[in-house]
């Protein structure tokens, strides 16, 4: 046994190491299964998968990459949250501060934004792939519904984040995007039949979204909380359901 192997052996056989990792490293079928089942993160996978389901030309890797982009936005987002205050007086100045003074501030902001855009493209392509392979067919109908909800949440996550830089692009894009709400039938003050319900500019669907009749500081705080806490929380719960269902039902594939 070479010295290097001895050191490795000492580490891997130590009590501390064995307390953390419950599987060995020899390339045996048992260890391969243990690698997955005894690890809380890898445990998202089944221990074994159908051969065809691993191939990239089958999955396009799009579901996993959507999740990866979610993780990237979460990590970079936490970094940005240290320097950003969701207050109308400070928000824009904090953006400038973040871009010019913070170490890696600009890079973190860029990665956050581009990962968010990429996440939307990936989730659309993921849906397209799942449609093409008919993977929503029984018994996976419910997981398709969860996926549709996650698609909507992805768009909402990106949309609420769009306001936070508090620049011209932000407030006008969000204004245009939210004006739909005031046209909701019954619930928006410009929508059909609004006069029968009694909604008005400061008491309708859009005002509920904005926290007031117009986009203002209240909207910034509201969107910040939706963006950083509420929607990620709901999306995480739905993702857990989504992944768990895949694990339960297995990857779709032709019957043997």
């Amino acid at each position, binding site marked *: 046994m070479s010295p290097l192997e001895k050191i490795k052996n000492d580490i891997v056989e130590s009590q501390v190491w064995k307390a953390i990792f419950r599987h060995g490293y020899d390339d045996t079928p048992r260890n391969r299964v243990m690698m997955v089942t005894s690890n809380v993160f890898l445990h998202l996978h089944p221990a074994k998968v159908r051969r065809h389901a691993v191939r990239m030309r089958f999955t396009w890797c799009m579901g996993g990459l959507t999740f990866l982009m979610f993780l990237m936005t979460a990590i970079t987002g936490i970094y940005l949250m240290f320097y950003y205050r969701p207050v109308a007086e400070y928000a824009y100045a904090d953006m400038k501060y973040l871009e010019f003074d913070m170490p890696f501030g600009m890079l973190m902001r860029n990665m956050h934004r581009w990962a968010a855009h990429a996440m939307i493209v990936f989730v659309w392509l993921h849906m397209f792939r799942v449609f093409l392979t008919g993977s929503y067919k029984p018994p996976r109908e419910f997981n398709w519904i969860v996926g549709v909800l996650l698609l909507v949440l992805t768009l909402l996550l990106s949309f609420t984040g769009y306001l936070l830089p508090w620049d011209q692009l932000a*407030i006008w894009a969000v204004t245009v995007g939210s*004006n739909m709400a005031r046209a909701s039938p019954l619930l928006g003050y410009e929508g059909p039949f609004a006069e029968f319900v009694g909604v008005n500019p400061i008491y309708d669907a859009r005002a509920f979204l904005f926290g007031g009749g117009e986009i203002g500081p209240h909207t910034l705080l509201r969107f910040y909380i939706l963006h950083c806490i509420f929607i990620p929380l709901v999306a995480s719960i739905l993702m857990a359901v989504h992944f768990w269902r895949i694990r339960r039902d297995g990857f779709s594939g032709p019957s043997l």
Partner: protein
Amino acid sequence: MAESAQERKLPVDDKIHTWPHLVRMEFLVALFVLIGLTIWSLTIDAPLEEPANPTKTPNPSKAPWYFLGLQEMLVYFDPWHAGVVLPTLIIVGLVVIPFIDTNPKGNGYYCFKDRKWEILTFIFGFHILWVVTIIIGTFFRGPGWNLFWPWQFWDTHKVVALTNVDLPYLLGIRSYWVAAAFGLFAIGAYFIGWMGFFYWFVLKVKGKDFLERWGMVRFNITGVILAVMMSLPAKMFLRLAFNVKYILVTPWINI
């Protein structure tokens, strides 16, 4: 694919270990994508314009790019329809897909032949209606939401003649209530006509047995969703070809 697998008599258990086969693939793909994302982020900065100013409306005001398909629909329908009803129906339409598509074939493998109409419908809705309208909204819309070529100068004073008229007016109906009644009739005729066409089409392509197995509930949900989906290109055609503004005009809603 399913047949050929049986022909070749593959072993029943075609499973491989997740570790290392799948985990290795995920790791490598994640690595490459993260490298790409990092390079992209190092080269292209996220936009930051001047500070928010509620008194200074940019022209054009564009929604985030992924909603520009919805904003593009605002050209053809009123906000309550294009911004609320149609997006809701898009979501509903996506949700019902697994329940209206009862074709057992094509579950878990790529196959165009057995699911031709399903795949063509999805491609039409996703690639044509959704993606193309996003591209139009992103690259071909300028001040006043007028059409511009991407390389064309954005002339804020571009004069566009407002020649759109309502369909009943175009057909010579001048009475208010007759026009409303005609509009209602036209919309009803569109839906009934579409459902009739759809019935004939399903009967011709899939046959009577299929229709009986499919059931009236699935047939009606699918037909209505498709009718709503096709109403967008229909309205676009009426607008672009005949300058039709509304089909149905009432004191409460216009379509």
